[in-house]
């Protein structure tokens, strides 16, 4: 974990240095690169642990989520959301959910986000229209609410174990494969699957009707 902490500190220091020395981007990148290589030389065994990679993906995920909210250009926000969805797909892979990871990339990052990109291209939204966060009491109220909400969730996580801790069963062969998922979808949850297909058709018809240009 030392490697991860060190690399995170290097990245944050590089970002701070970029803010302080805007005219010398090459110097910042060079210094950050050298620091990262030195750290890698000191703790190479950390690279083989799964905690390091989970932490690294988590860092990128949180960073991209913050940048979605803070960046003024909506197209760049979409790119950061795609990066975030890709990091979530990597989390799914770490949690033995291979089919869902790939489906997340195909459907969420590959199709839904293309919809967002299309709409931004059609509406021609540039940076100045994406800015304008709410000023005044709403902004501080929102940040305060966010802090309170995060505090509530951490409290709930800490006081989670009501019952005694049960040793988890070993994994069934084929956990997370398409075969398992498909079997469940079409046997136990077949009604929900059919309802989801009806929902998709309704959404398609609704979207076409709402966005239709009325030829007057």
């Amino acid at each position, binding site marked *: 974990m030392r490697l991860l902490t060190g690399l995170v500190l290097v990245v944050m220091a590089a970002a701070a240095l970029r803010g302080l020395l805007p005219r010398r981007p090459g110097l910042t990148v060079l210094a950050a690169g050298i620091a990262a290589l030195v750290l890698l030389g000191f703790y190479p065994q950390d690279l083989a642990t799964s905690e390091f990679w989970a932490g690294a993906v988590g860092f990128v995920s949180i960073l991209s989520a913050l940048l979605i909210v803070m960046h003024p250009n909506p197209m760049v926000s979409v790119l950061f959301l795609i990066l975030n969805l890709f990091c979530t797909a990597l989390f799914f892979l770490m949690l033995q959910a291979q089919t869902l990871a790939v489906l997340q990339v195909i459907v969420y990052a590959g199709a839904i986000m293309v919809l*967002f990109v299309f709409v931004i291209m059609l*509406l021609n939204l540039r940076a100045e229209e994406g800015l304008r966060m709410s000023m005044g009491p709403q902004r501080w109220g929102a940040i305060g609410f966010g802090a309170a909400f995060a505090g509530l969730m951490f409290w709930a996580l800490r006081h989670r174990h009501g019952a005694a801790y049960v040793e988890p069963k070993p994994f069934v062969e084929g956990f997370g494969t398409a075969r398992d998922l498909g079997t469940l979808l079409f046997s136990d949850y077949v009604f929900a699957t059919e309802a989801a297909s009806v929902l998709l058709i309704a959404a398609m018809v609704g979207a076409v009707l709402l966005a239709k240009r009325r030829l007057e």
Partner: protein
Amino acid sequence: MRIDFFLVMAALLFTVGCVGVLIRRNVIVILMCIELMLNAVNLTFIAFAHEMRSMAGHVFALFVITVAACEAAVGLAIVLALFRRRRTTNVDDVSLMRW
């Protein structure tokens, strides 16, 4: 206790999404923060499915993705229709309220 890591990640992502919905004024960025919240919920489902060794979490997450797709499509269609009437994507400018 690996699952705690994923639950904490999901909680943080959900909070960032919440704050984004409340802070940003551009309708498309608000929709994106809603997608971020749905994504965090998916991560929680999959983390618990891993803990309980049950595929029900995966099925649920798949349906959440489906519903997110429908909601994004319809939401963006509404944004397009709104833009045609009001020529703005700022939610402050489309309010018909008195104050």
